[in-house]
């Protein structure tokens, strides 16, 4: 794996992208013992508006804390996809919600599409876990952090009463990743 991995989680405010970034950084930094930085960019709105969370993971000290070229891009809205796909590394991967991102960019990168939010609603009765399913997919596809680490990080950061549903959502994400991989 590369010395420095840059991940961009993008979509709109309220989709839980910032929390997803925190969980990913915690998995890498605390439970996998690497260096990790999480930062974010969002508008003044409480909900809606563009939102992105950036995570940099490295075996060494991290100087520049933001994404220069993303190795992993998650896009949960069309706007976010159109905007950040330009910044995708040539060997980077795109994970997108197939219901929310309907115009798939014409790029040579590996693209993984799945109706993440819709599945969250169907399986768990809430779109709130879209972010955690997405994390499961990303980790399942890339092993950017260990599955053990991401499990611990999810349990540590989500509210106690929501622990079970989030754990299940993460495992579902792992399974979706397996299917997506075999399809390729």
């Amino acid at each position, binding site marked *: 794996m590369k010395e420095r991995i840059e991940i961009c989680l993008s979509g709109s405010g309220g989709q839980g992208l910032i929390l997803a970034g*925190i969980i990913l*950084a*915690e998995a890498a*930094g*605390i*439970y996998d*013992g690497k*260096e*990790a*930085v*999480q*930062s*974010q*960019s*969002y*508008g*003044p709105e409480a909900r809606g508006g563009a939102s992105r969370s950036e995570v940099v993971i490295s075996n060494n000290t*991290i*100087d*520049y*804390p*933001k994404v*220069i070229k993303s190795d992993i891009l998650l896009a949960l809205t069309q706007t976010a996809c159109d905007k950040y796909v330009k910044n995708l590394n040539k060997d980077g991967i795109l994970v997108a919600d197939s219901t929310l991102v309907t115009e798939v960019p014409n790029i040579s990168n590996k693209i993984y599409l799945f109706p993440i939010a819709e599945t969250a609603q169907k399986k768990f009765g809430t779109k709130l876990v879209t972010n955690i399913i997405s994390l499961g997919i990303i980790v399942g596809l890339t092993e950017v952090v260990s599955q053990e680490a991401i499990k611990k990080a999810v349990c540590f950061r989500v509210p106690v009463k929501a622990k079970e549903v989030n754990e299940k959502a993460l495992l579902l994400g792992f399974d979706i990743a397996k299917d997506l991989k075999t399809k390729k």
Partner: protein
Amino acid sequence: MNNLKKKKNIKLLQGNEACAEGALLAGVKFFAGYPITPSSEIAENMARKLPKIGGKFIQMEDEIASMAAVIGASIAGLKSLTATSGPGMCLKQENLGFAIINEIPCVVVNAQRGGPSTGLPTKPSQGDMMQARWGTHGDHPIIALAPSTVNEILTLTIKAFNFSEKYRTPVILLLDEVIAHMREKVEIPAPENIEVINRKKPTVPPEEYLPFKPDEDGVPPMANFGEGYRYHITGLIHNYKGLPTSNSQEIDAFIRRLHNKIQKNIKDIIIYEKYSLDDAKIALIAYGSVARAAERTVKLAREEGLKVGLLKLLTIWPFPFEEVNRLAQQVDLIIVPEMNLGQIVLEAERAAQGKCRVVPYGRVDGELINPIEILGKIWEEIRK
């Protein structure tokens, strides 16, 4: 892994959380403030944690009152903190001056966002660097520190309290939205491993106490209100007793002492770090989150065979004049990248005294400067 975690107390902390942790380690017991992005998590953490250690948290009606409450609490003997952003920092200026003239230790955090006015609530800026120096009127000194990592936020918050107590002065901690909101791995030091400085108390009985008579180091011992030492505090320039004076000798001595107690201790106060400067012909001078972009630029430039180094400023005010002057004698060019259109570059230019070229590189669109554009600026200047 779990053992390591327990032994070392490593956490993923947000910059603002690290500021609160640092303040607690330094012995903060009072926080007054008014919430504002991107500083609010400092207040939130203080609200959660201060009551548990017998401290006090109060949300005031605005930032003017917050600053006043911080001054009052400090005079009563508590280490005091307030945190805000640009719009609130404007309101604090009046009472900041009151704290300076009365030599009240306190720490004021400004998590900088885009301005002027309410500007860009959720986006970073370094537009308040000169405000930190000259925001409040009068010919006053100030100490201002600018961390560039979450870990440095923790350690410099402790430093800020220590300087404020040691030199009896407000200290401004300048964050920016990037590092205030960013989360990073931090090793929280054990209390026994950190130096905590407390203000000097009077050694004389109340009837002999002259509240503004300095010791040899220029700093007067400070009695807590409520401990039997009755004294007068005023925004007017005052004599040793704290009473207003129009005696020109006393006035002159007072203003000079305010400056000297900082200026004579710049060796203690000025903190900076050098990266790859030994053989450098081009130097970057940067601070805050931009220093991290500059650090990466140095590596990229070295890969391209350019002798570039970085002077990272952690103390902004007083400005590290001597260090920059020495640097200007060594290098041919200094570039100062900052998220404004030229503030600290002016100080760098002044300190360089014409010994090398000093050029600004500013970005003001609410995004952090990236390493590639600084490298681009270096090449642009080389080709000139």
